[in-house]
């Protein structure tokens, strides 16, 4: 539990801030978009409506968080969140320069580390199986233009 003492519903407060911040951001970024005329609405009208809508919703959620006892924020499961995100980033960075096999090994290792129990012997069978399957399906089957090994 890391809801700060005194805050009645940490979850609602943060949620309200998030909505309002996105809304305000949209209004700020979209401030230069033309509004056009009533007959020919410009590209700024819809973002303007949505921006204010989000600010309004955010304010309501925030105030509700101040007034009522709601759920507190619970701790983040940093390990899976970070490792899974990192795995997707690794895929994006590696797939073109390093090819399928290296990318898969890195992505799957990060994926395995994200879970708490991973068994080496099991993975020693699972990884090659997955790699073989991926080569057959994606490269031979669907003909995706990915190299298999870094030096191909």
């Amino acid at each position, binding site marked *: 539990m890391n809801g700060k003492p005194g805050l009645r519903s940490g*979850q609602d407060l*943060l*949620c309200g801030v*998030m*909505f309002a911040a*996105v*809304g305000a951001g*949209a209004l700020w*970024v*979209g401030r230069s*978009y*033309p509004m056009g*005329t*009533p*007959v*020919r*609405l*410009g*590209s700024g*009208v*819809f*973002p303007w409506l*949505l921006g204010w*809508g*989000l600010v309004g*919703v955010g304010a309501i*959620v925030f105030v*509700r968080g101040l007034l009522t006892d709601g*759920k507190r*924020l619970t701790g*983040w*499961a940093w390990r*899976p*969140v970070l490792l*899974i*995100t990192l*795995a*997707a*980033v690794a*895929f*994006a*960075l590696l*797939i*073109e320069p390093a090819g399928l096999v290296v990318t*898969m090994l890195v*992505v*799957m290792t990060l*994926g*395995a580390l*994200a*879970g708490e*129990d*991973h068994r080496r012997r*099991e993975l020693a069978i*699972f990884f090659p199986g*997955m790699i073989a399957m*991926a080569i057959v399906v*994606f490269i031979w089957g*669907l003909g*995706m233009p990915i190299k298999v090994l870094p030096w191909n």
Partner: protein
Amino acid sequence: MELSDLGSNLALGFSVALTLENLFWCLVGVVVGTAIGVLPGVGPVATMALLLPVTYYLPAEGALIMLAGIYYGAQYGGSTTAILVNLPGESSSVVTCLDGYQMARQGRPGQALAIAAIGSFFAGTVATVLIAVAAPPLTRLALQFGPADYCSLMVLGLVTAVVMAHGSVIKALGMILLGLLLGIVGTDVQSGALRFTFGVDILFDGINFVPIAMGVFGLNEIMANLTNKQRRELLSSNIGTLMPSREDLRRSFGAMVRGTGLGSLLGILPGGGAVLASFAAYTLEKRISKTPEKFGTGMIEGVAAPESANNAAAQTSFIPMLTLGIPSNAVMAMMVGGMMIHGIIPGPQVMTEKPGLFWGMIASMWLGNLMLVVFNLPLVGIWVKMLMVPYRLLSIAILFFCCIGVYSLNNSAQEVLLIAVFGLVGYLFHKLDCEAAPMLLGFILGPMMETYLRRAMLLSRGDATVFVTSPLSLTFLVLSALLLLVVILPAVRRTREQAFVEES
């Protein structure tokens, strides 16, 4: 004349659906659907998102037939896990656990599985006919809508989605607005101006639907599932006889009919769908039963009604998407995504411009249901074995498929970075108790709504009162306002909260 139309339409549909190729894609869809239905923690939305890139390689008919099969196939699979393991394989099978698992404990798992399958098939058949009958008149009606009517109809759809969303109404509203905003990122079709692209070139064409869906549903599901562990205990691998007794059938029949009726109705409503339908059907059975206290102890009605209802709803939820082009839940948003990949703009014109696709898909639903009922029961043993695949391996496979799936769309590594971003954002939503499904609906509807809004203003020469002077538009707006009012009223809110508490 109407009737002969129906006949010729269905004949056209079957002529498309019965080709060897389309039968194959239908089979793939329902098998994949059953598989993910059996597995807890893997839902139809994430699976459809995973397979969207694959459909790129298929003809449009095959792609949509397969995607549809995943959804209703999942309803069949979900009940298997619910009955045998007391875990809902799908959220729409939560209530099936109550009586289904008890039946299994009393040594009648076979009968429970059989009734679930028969009920689903009965519901699937009725719902298919219902779609075929309801679609043409609804489409004709939709073709007469002006842009203002359309705009208001979308408002109604989004408001209903808000009302039906689990949890907080105001948060669901915020998520819809967020989705609408994400939907208009990129080049404005009307003026060519760039909006919210921050100079990032992959955003110029707008955010692709697939990375959002995969990040928010695929990656986020892994993150959430890896943190809460489930124990899977298989009751017994011995299914016993599948034949329900005459008494079982007699008692189930009424429940199936009622479940189908209720499910069909709830499926059509925006934001509705299989989950709500199964819960409502169970409640109804309990209420009208002479022995309500026996529910939860292995009453066969408690299996027949929700399983019929969830399948009926899964299918009738295609009606608004097919006739109006408006997705009513996250699964239908995926279907729209699938159509757009093939350059089909969903809406009433699909039926007239692509009758083969339209009726082929409807006919395939009945064929798919038939396949499910014929193949599934004998294969139950195999499905159950699948539960032995530990989630620690499954999660790794899903992670990789998400990445390569997005990459295969445009061979763009940058789009894979997008799923990382949306995975994180999705986890934030999860932590804040904000449901992602309304956001996805908003995302799909955002550009459409803006276009109709502009068109309405142009046609009315800048007069915003067109939204209340057109009778249709006025009706939709009044309905939306009433719905919002109803939810805000405390009495209704309390029962609604109760309903969702029981459901989860």
